[in-house]
């Protein structure tokens, strides 16, 4: 009788093998296909299902939050109440297209602590709070909104810093987009559309793209000249209509095609206030690439600046320029191969405002737990002294004069002492890129900004830093100082 039972037993184990083959088929061989089937809601639900922490501004404004889906308990939807205003700073966290901005940079803090990692389990056993942590950003929502609105239809970026701490007060890029678009069921198509948009709304022009800084770079050259003692505000230079670059037939002239002052001599002070290319090209060559490079490096050029995410290096190529006086002359007015992000140029203005000390920028003030206690706070770190106190003071006076009677008059704010420097760098094609960097109030600076506009048909052919970027800076100072 054992014979037939044995045969049935064999049959039973053949059937069990069939079941094993079945689970192998569905859980190994066809697993990806089944998981990815568009009728299978699980992948999307598991991503959406997780609660992430808040991203808030210091004033309590919610920039990102997870809201429980009323039709689907235990499932959370990410919301960005500020929409396009914080798209580049806060970023997005989307199942379909990934994450960016602070959502990506602080993913580890914002994530649900119920992912069954070993550390989560240990935390659970120790009775710790398992709700996700939240992130408090330094940016001011009112300033941020005003800044994006001020850019209007223009392409460009604005970065505003607290000059004494490096805290980001506003950081945005135009055109922007509503990150909520990347959360829906059509996220992939929306992403594709944004990606193919010629205005490139996904690009954070403030921190992830480098531009020729134009005449705003004269701030760096002037600082180097003052700091080394090579010149003081009263030092006089020849004042030609055109400055001939050494070893070349190329010349450099001023924006209005006229001499800087009277056609004979002009002081450094006058050249700075009127943003004279002829004299700054001359000064740069006299100073040398090395001395300018020392100041530029101290202000954050040619190095990886620590930020919330990786930012491109600002470029001042000392070695190459030391060999090539003609290129040095062009670079001294912020053209040719000099490059910086608007964030870098805001740091330059901030260093002048901060008594010559450059600070490291940061956008997150603190990380706090669900019960409100601070888990981690950002320490203010200095990048180092970029120029002497006296240089900073002198440069401040020169920059204030730019706003009172020079190229940056439109940056003025009634009743406030504003310092700044305009720039109009060569952009792509026939349009130039207007710039403005500056800070206010002069006696106790609380904000330093960089405004960049990418030259397009919108900004127009005649747009300059003074006519297009300076008024935007004025608006920002007003919003910031009157709130």
């Amino acid at each position, binding site marked *: *009788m054992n014979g037939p*039972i044995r045969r049935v037993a064999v049959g039973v184990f053949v059937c069990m093998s069939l079941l094993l083959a079945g689970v*192998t088929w569905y859980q190994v061989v066809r697993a990806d296909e089944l998981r990815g089937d568009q009728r299978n809601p699980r992948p999307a639900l598991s991503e959406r299902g997780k609660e992430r922490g808040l991203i808030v501004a210091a004033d309590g404004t919610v920039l990102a939050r997870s809201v429980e889906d009323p039709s689907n308990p235990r499932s959370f939807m990410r919301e960005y109440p500020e929409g396009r205003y914080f798209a580049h700073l806060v970023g997005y966290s989307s199942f379909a297209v990934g994450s960016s901005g602070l959502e990506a940079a602080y993913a580890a803090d914002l994530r649900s602590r119920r992912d069954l990692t070993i550390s989560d389990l240990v935390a*659970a056993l120790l009775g710790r709070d398992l709700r996700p942590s939240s992130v408090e950003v330094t940016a001011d929502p009112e300033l941020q909104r005003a800044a994006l609105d001020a850019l209007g239809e223009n392409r460009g970026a604005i970065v505003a810093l607290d000059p004494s701490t490096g805290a980001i007060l506003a950081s945005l890029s135009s055109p922007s987009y509503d990150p909520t678009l990347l959360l829906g069921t059509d996220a992939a198509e929306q992403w594709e559309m944004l990606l193919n948009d010629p205005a490139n709304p996904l690009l954070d022009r403030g921190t992830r793209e480098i531009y020729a800084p134009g005449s705003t770079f004269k701030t760096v050259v002037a600082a180097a000249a003052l700091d080394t003692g090579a010149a003081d505000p009263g030092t006089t230079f020849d004042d030609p209509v055109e400055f001939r670059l050494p070893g070349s037939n190329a010349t450099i002239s001023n924006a209005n095609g006229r001499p800087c002052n009277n056609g004979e001599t002009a002081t450094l002070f006058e050249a700075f206030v009127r943003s004279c290319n002829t004299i700054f090209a001359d000064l740069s060559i006299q100073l040398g690439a090395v001395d300018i490079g020392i100041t530029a490096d101290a202000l954050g050029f040619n190095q990886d600046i620590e930020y919330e995410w990786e930012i491109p290096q600002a470029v001042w190529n000392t070695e190459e320029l030391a060999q090539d006086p003609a290129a040095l002359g062009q670079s001294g007015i912020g053209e040719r191969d000099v490059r910086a992000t608007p964030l870098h140029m805001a740091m330059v203005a901030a260093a002048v405002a901060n008594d010559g000390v450059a600070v490291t920028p940061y956008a997150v003030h603190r990380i706090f737990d669900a019960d409100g206690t601070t888990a981690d706070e950002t320490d203010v770190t200095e990048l180092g002294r970029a120029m002497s106190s006296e240089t900073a003071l002198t440069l401040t006076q020169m920059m204030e004069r730019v706003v009172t009677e020079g190229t940056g008059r439109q940056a003025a704010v009634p009743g406030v002492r504003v310092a700044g420097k305009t720039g109009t760098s060569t952009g792509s094609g026939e349009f130039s890129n207007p710039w403005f960097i500056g800070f206010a109030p002069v006696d106790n600076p609380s904000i330093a900004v960089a405004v960049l506009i990418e030259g397009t048909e919108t900004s127009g052919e005649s747009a300059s830093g003074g006519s297009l970027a300076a008024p935007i800076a004025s608006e920002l100072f007003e919003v910031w100082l009157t709130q």
Partner: protein
Amino acid sequence: MERRAEAITTAAAALLAAFAVALVNFANGGSVDAQTGLTFLVFALAFGTLFVAVRAFAPRATPLLIPPVVGLVAIGFFEIYRLDPERAGLQRWWLLIAAAIAALTLMLLARGTTSILRRYRYLILVLSIGLLLLPNLPSDWGVPLRGLEVNGSRLWIVLDLGFTRMQFQPAELAKLGMVIFFAGYLADHQRALREAHRRIGPIRLPEPRQLIPLVLAWSGSIFILIWQRDLGASVLMFAGFVLLLYAATGATGYLVAGGLMTLTGAAAAAYLFDHVHRRVIAWVAPFEHYQDEGFQIAQGLFALGTGSLTGAGPGLGRPDLIPNAATDFIFAAVGEELGFAGTVAVLALFGLVMAVGFGISFRSRDTFRKLLAAGLTFVLAVQVFLIVGGVLRIVPLTGITLPFMSYGGSALVGNMVLIALLLRISHEEAT
């Protein structure tokens, strides 16, 4: 020595249940709470009782049976808890009841040995048929004991005593009674059944007279299918009988005849009964009928595929999207949260239980006990194959639940008694 290993593995399995419950809580936003401790206590109490009963009433029983069973109950329990904590609370009570009844079974059999079951085989048959018929009692008469129709099937009885209300599926116990009767009947008649057959060429055909029991069993199954609309029990009963008939006689003709009868019966049922027809549609083309018939199977397959190799983790998948996940589709739910690793573990544990069951049968010297052990193992194996095969689209879904794992008190009681019987037989054979 072996008993200690058995105790340690059993305790480990109980700890596993408690740990999995803690993980589910954790995944759902709670932390370690009373549920964890309660689960461990209930497992310890239930299987501790069974343990003491085995030591007292079947001390020579194999130590290999209880640990895999605890493992299966533990995995099933955490998944039920994850799907529906309220039902898990009920299931915990049922686990205590099932363990107590299994211990009681061991105690009763210690008095008279399993031969007592053979002696009363006809009484057991009558009781089993009575149990099977109970759900056909009217649903609305004045007696506290009533039949109940759930999802179009008549499988339940309700004992409504006014202050409390209990539901039970008598077929879960009846199927054990039927196996006991079959084993007793075949032990009596095996020689006659084995030797009475004709030869037509190489094929040995049973005498027509000897086909009577087969036809009776088949009719019984058809009855269950028509009057109770219970496809699963119908197939299980008939398959169990045919396999046992073959085991007793070694006559391949019974297998062939039984197979043909199953196929014709199934084809006719698929053609005649709408509820069977729908199951066949869902089996053949679940994704083409995603919106209706195929939805459950498709969701089950999505769950398995999404679980992939290691699963989402306890409480982190979405097995709640599968209709009836806690009963019919517990295997897919486990597959989603524990992955391929979990489903293979479950199949391995079932394989171990079956191997031990067959081993008990092989070693039995007494024909009745040999057939009983084999029959009980067949019934278990057929159930596992029908439901897991149903989830995996190897066979159509029959509405059978997964032994030890699915939510349901009656099935747990029935299957624990099945294990108690196997334990007792293994004890008697070792004496």
